[in-house]
């Protein structure tokens, strides 16, 4: 009995020893990328198989699938190990990134197998954003292709510093060294400005396993490392701990009145009990009182650790702010320049309002200037008016409220952001901040003694922006003019901003492309905001066909001040009325980009006021608007006096 017990304990100890050894291994995250059919998925299948990560039942499934979908004749098709979606196996392509895990005696690996098709570039970027090394595959027969270059540029922009140039299918060019040398030289010339710390070219055949895990005697002229030898030994420095302390506040933990902790993950540097820290946006200083975890308080915390910080003083901090080192602070600005990768079918439009998200902060953002598009073939900078899907550009961005950030080169965690479409909530782009724009520091908002409230009081009214949207000929101007007359007659101070009139003056440089329509609305919205600030009741009468712009306008104004009025007249009726003869021209093709004909109109989903004009007189509709305004003013008055709470 005693003998057996000893044996069990020994076995337990050896398991614990083994696990401790596993824990000491370092982790390398890498991706495979490159053009379609260069063999990315096959390479990963080969890596998994030759490092003995595949179980018997998985191998059985693989053999069965190879017969059904395989593209390698009688052989096992290793790509089917990673192409996990049905559509992928049927079409024999990779659509989305797959994450695979394997380890060797020296290291652990997480590999992202990313798609080569241009249309799935965003999925490649997803895989690249968390990787430290990229294996760029090249088909030895094809050499460096456009997609090889695109992926290399994206990898470089996303901060990847180590490249393996895998010259694959070398068996199909008879293991010819000249081919390998030519491709290697070609790539080196292209990549010289991409800032990679290392480029290691390896000739291989993923299908047969040459130089993947096994050294190939068929490529005797090559004396460098096999792929796995290189992956096991490449030094990827993780300098995050050495950098200045950054702690983006993720969540304020306040279970009771006695505890107020700021939860988050240390983005860089380290922090210890007693350290002085500064709130990035306000500049307020305090000290670290406690570093709380469930396992007990810590003396210090380092980059990568998720902790809860308690400060010595009551300082105002909410999600999106950052606790930082007092001697090395991040930028706090509302304008900056950034590299941008665009993901969406709908092109990036300068002037359109998007949501910008950093790791924990979120605000409205506009691309104020698209400085250039980067040509993925030669890295040249070209002038551009918009960024299409999968294009890369450099732009200036302006955000509604200042954010705290570092440049992406300094800090991959605090220098990155994504852009989100306001209507569809799709992730439409990813950005890497290049530098803050000084302008933002120099324009300080003047705090005026005479403010909006004073101006409005002098006019004995509450400001409002009636935003009329609807098709051309729907009756916007008619109703707007009548409304102004009525308001004026009752002593209100008003102004009409009319689409046609503004286009003759302020916006006469703008045409009717999507980009120009966005800019048109942006300017009008800003003017309306200034007028409301002056205390006026503004009536904006614009087709304003896009939801995103109307939402942008809405968010410029305080809540309750923006009143979206949908002048809803059916297309057929507008075309019948055709007061300016425009529908006739558009329908015959003489007038381009006409809303409702060959340019879309996105009807409001939740307008404050929905005017269905058919069968109603303009006078009754003006009555509705006037009554709405009166009700709002009464409600707000009650609210201010406490009755509405």
């Amino acid at each position, binding site marked *: 009995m005693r003998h057996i017990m000893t044996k069990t304990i020994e076995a337990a100890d050896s398991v614990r020893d083994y696990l401790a050894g596993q824990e000491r291994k370092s982790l390398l995250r890498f991706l495979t990328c490159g053009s379609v059919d260069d063999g990315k998925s096959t390479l990963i299948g080969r890596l998994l198989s030759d490092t003995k990560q595949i179980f018997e039942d998985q191998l059985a499934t693989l053999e069965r699938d190879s017969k059904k979908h395989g593209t390698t004749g009688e052989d096992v098709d290793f790509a089917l190990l990673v192409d996990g979606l049905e559509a992928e196996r049927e079409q024999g392509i990779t659509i989305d990134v797959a994450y695979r895990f394997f380890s060797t005696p020296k290291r*652990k690996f997480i590999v992202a197998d990313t798609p080569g098709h241009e249309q799935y570039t965003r999925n490649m970027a997803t895989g690249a954003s968390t990787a430290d090394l990229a294996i760029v595959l090249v088909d030895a027969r094809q050499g460096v292709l456009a997609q090889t270059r695109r992926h290399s540029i994206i990898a470089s922009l996303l901060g990847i510093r180590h490249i393996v140039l895998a010259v694959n299918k070398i068996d199909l060019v008879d293991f010819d060294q000249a081919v390998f040398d030519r491709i290697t030289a070609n790539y080196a010339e292209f990549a010289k400005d991409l800032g990679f710390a290392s480029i290691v070219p390896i000739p291989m055949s993923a299908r047969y396993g040459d130089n993947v895990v096994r050294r190939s005697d068929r490529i005797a002229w090559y004396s460098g490392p096999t792929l796995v030898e290189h992956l096991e030994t490449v030094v990827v420095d993780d300098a995050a701990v050495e950098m200045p302390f950054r702690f983006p506040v993720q969540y304020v933990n306040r279970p009771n009145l006695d505890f107020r902790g700021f939860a988050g993950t240390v983005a860089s540097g380290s922090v210890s009990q007693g350290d002085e820290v500064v709130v990035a946006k306000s500049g307020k200083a305090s000290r670290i009182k406690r570093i709380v975890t469930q396992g007990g308080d810590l003396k210090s915390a380092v980059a990568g650790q998720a902790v809860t910080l308690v400060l010595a003083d009551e300082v105002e901090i909410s999600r999106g702010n950052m606790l930082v080192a007092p001697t090395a602070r991040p930028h706090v600005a509302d304008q900056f320049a950034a590299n941008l990768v665009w993901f969406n079918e709908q092109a990036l439009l300068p002037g359109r309002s998007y949501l910008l998200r*950093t790791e924990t902060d979120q605000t409205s953002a506009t691309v104020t200037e698209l400085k250039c598009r980067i040509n993925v073939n030669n890295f040249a900078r070209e002038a551009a008016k918009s960024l299409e899907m999968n294009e890369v550009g450099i732009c200036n961005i302006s955000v509604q409220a200042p954010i705290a950030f570092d440049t992406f080169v300094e800090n991959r965690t605090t220098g990155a952001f994504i852009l*989100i479409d306001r209507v569809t909530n799709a*992730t439409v782009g990813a950005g890497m901040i290049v530098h803050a724009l000084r302008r933002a520091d120099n324009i300080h908002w003047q705090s005026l003694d005479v403010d909006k409230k004073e101006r409005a009081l002098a006019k004995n009214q509450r400001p409002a922006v009636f935003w009329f949207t609807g098709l051309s000929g729907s009756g916007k101007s008619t109703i707007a003019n009548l409304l102004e007359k009525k308001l004026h007659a009752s002593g209100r101070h008003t102004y009409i901003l009319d689409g046609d009139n503004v286009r003759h003056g302020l916006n006469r440089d703008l045409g009717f492309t999507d980009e120009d329509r966005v800019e048109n609305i942006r300017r009008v919205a800003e003017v309306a905001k200034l007028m409301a600030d002056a205390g006026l009741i503004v009536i904006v009468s614009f087709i304003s066909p896009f939801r995103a712009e109307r939402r942008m306008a809405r968010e410029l104004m305080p809540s309750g001040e923006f009143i979206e009025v949908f002048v809803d007249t059916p297309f057929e009726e507008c075309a019948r009325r055709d007061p300016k003869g425009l529908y006739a021209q558009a329908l015959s093709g003489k007038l381009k980009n006409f809303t409702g004909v060959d340019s879309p109109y996105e009807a409001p989903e939740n307008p404050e006021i929905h005017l269905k004009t058919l069968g109603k007189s303009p006078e009754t509709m003006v009555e509705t608007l006037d009554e709405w305004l009166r009700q709002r003013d009464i409600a707000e008055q009650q609210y201010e006096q406490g009755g509405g709470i």
Partner: protein
Amino acid sequence: MLAKLTHLDRLEAEAIHIFREVAATFSKPVMLYSVGKDSSVLMHLAMKAFYPAKPPFPFLHVDTTWKFREMIEFRDEMARKLGFDLIVHINEEGVRDGINPFDSGSNTHTHIMKTVGLRQALDKYGFDAAFGGARRDEEKSRAKERIFSFRDAQHVWDPKNQRPEMWKIYNTRVAKGESIRVFPLSNWTELDIWQYILQEDIPIVPLYFAKERPVVERDGMLIMRDDERMKLKPGETIENRMVRFRTLGCYPLTGAIDSDADSLEGIVSEMLTARTSERQGRLIDRDEAGSMEKKKREGYF
């Protein structure tokens, strides 16, 4: 001298970060609690993420009425001990229609009692985010899934059109009725899970440890007869064998393995020499090719 983070430290931090991100940005999150080892780890991490507070969301168990009895006991005990808010949902329509794994078939049973049951529960309470314990190393279609995985108002996953997921910047925006499934354990492997259970001393259902249990050999799997509802077919006999389970689900659909691993160390050492993957013990994954993806698209976790 600052401590260097281990691999498990980093995995733990990543999961905690994900938990907090959801709590900070969604209005009504829930954690799917399936009582298995991954759920145990998930629960442990949730407790850590919000300490000293309790997790600011309830735990939901979709009970198919065919879970091992020991799972239900364990579940109720954990809820008592940790004091979290437990919601148990059963698809009553399915019960009324007499759906069961033997007569209805594993596919229909799983679809109605688990997938439909889950959708009912999510709709009933209006949850806009749901944590699950799925890992990318489990299965091919899971290897493709985002950490924040978007579902439309019908709970459908569109694997061909997933949102890009850059760095640790998660897009948590959903419109009314839409939701996000969140997988904090995405980057964990089976070995990581066991290692973490060992390191943190996390309680798990005793079914994971080898013990003499009454089993029947059926369709090449060892099924434990957990109650009288399982009728023996001609020629079948019950024998007591030293067995344990690598995964847990509905008892008639979960195969046991012969094993004498009655400690965590024993399980790990057995796993290190294993020649088959853990999902092999799941009948539902073998029903048809690409079956996990199909189930996931329908709303299965």
